[in-house]
């Protein structure tokens, strides 16, 4: 599934000169860091979380969930809403800034943070390797290049997405169990933060002159919270952060909310803001 998303993105990349994408890329890295920096104080002062936990959860929400993106791609497909094709590239870029900002918030830029292990974990994490791999293959081979292999991956896309959703759903359900401590705040944060991030995402979309679909997709990326790449990186770089907390929020609450309600809402927000501003 990750390869399929990467392939799609890579093929689009080959069509446009990288330079034209530069503004989007920089903006998105800025957005990722911004969201993390906004979430941190909210968690620390309002949520009364310890520094480690606040930084870790903030990093989860500043990052993205590939699963949510995949469901959005399927949803936009059924509604055949157009969106800028280089979204997968932005998705990959959004994974990284949040992790760095999160670690700096928790640890400061001390040299004893095992940066090598963190990068090893982040960049060699299975998810990112497949995604970036797909991007590269798509980019080098270009549209015709992957003609013979392309149909295979896209048929597979929906099937694997279903299994992925099923698995995540089950694990999300199990997470809800551990809501005892910080329960109420986490639920509120897990729903309000994505909505807030979606608005920020739309603003960035407008700033970058994207289509309505593009704005909706960027909003979905902003609203989604990582539950595979970031938890792995946090576990190593901020060991004192309690993994159950961040996972309950990002997977148990936000992922479920996004997949069932979030995606259509973010599209509506995009349509609304698009009409008011360009209206």
């Amino acid at each position, binding site marked *: 599934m990750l390869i399929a998303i990467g392939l799609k993105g890579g093929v689009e990349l080959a069509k446009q000169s990288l330079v034209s994408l530069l503004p989007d890329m920089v903006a998105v890295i800025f957005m990722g860091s911004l969201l993390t920096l906004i979430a941190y104080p909210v968690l620390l002062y309002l949520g009364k979380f310890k520094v480690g936990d606040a930084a870790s959860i903030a990093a989860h929400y500043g990052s993205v969930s590939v699963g949510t993106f995949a469901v959005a791609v399927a949803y936009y497909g059924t509604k055949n809403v157009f969106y800028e094709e280089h979204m997968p590239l932005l998705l990959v870029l959004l994974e990284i800034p949040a992790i760095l900002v999160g670690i700096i918030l928790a640890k400061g830029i001390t040299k004893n943070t095992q940066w090598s292990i963190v990068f090893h974990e982040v960049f060699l994490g299975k998810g990112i390797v497949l995604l970036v791999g797909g991007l590269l293959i798509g980019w080098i081979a270009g549209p015709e290049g992957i003609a013979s292999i392309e149909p295979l991956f896209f048929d597979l896309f929906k099937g694997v997405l279903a299994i992925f959703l099923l*698995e995540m759903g089950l*694990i999300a359900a199990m997470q809800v169990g551990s809501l005892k401590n910080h329960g109420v705040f986490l639920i509120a944060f897990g729903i309000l933060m994505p909505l807030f991030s979606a608005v920020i995402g739309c603003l960035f979309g407008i700033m970058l002159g994207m289509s309505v679909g593009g704005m909706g997709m960027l909003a979905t990326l902003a609203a989604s919270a990582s539950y595979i790449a970031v938890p792995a990186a946090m*576990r*190593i770089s901020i060991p004192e952060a309690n993994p159950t907390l961040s996972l309950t929020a990002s997977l148990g609450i936000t992922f479920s909310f996004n997949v069932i309600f979030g995606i259509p809402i973010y599209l509506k927000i995009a349509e609304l803001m698009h009409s008011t501003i360009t209206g």
Partner: protein
Amino acid sequence: MMEDKIHNIKVLTIITEASIESSLIDDFESLGVNGFTIIDARGKGRRGSRMGGWESNSNIRIEIICDADQAKKISTFVKDKYFENYAIVIYISDSQVFRLDKF
């Protein structure tokens, strides 16, 4: 035929979170450990039940065949670095091997 002498050695067993596998392997390299065996596992301990299903909830069981000093050195290093923040247990048992030169 290699002469069949039997030698006493230690087997150091570490059971911990799967998410720190790569960090531990790096530690082993710096500690001069030249061999180890890793098995996927699940279980329950002081930090709650980690019955697997996906990576951040599953365990790994690491075995290192080494001599008594190495066992002490490795376990002390791992204890100081990981005991405080991670789900982890370490135990050391006695065993015999054929070719001492291998470890």
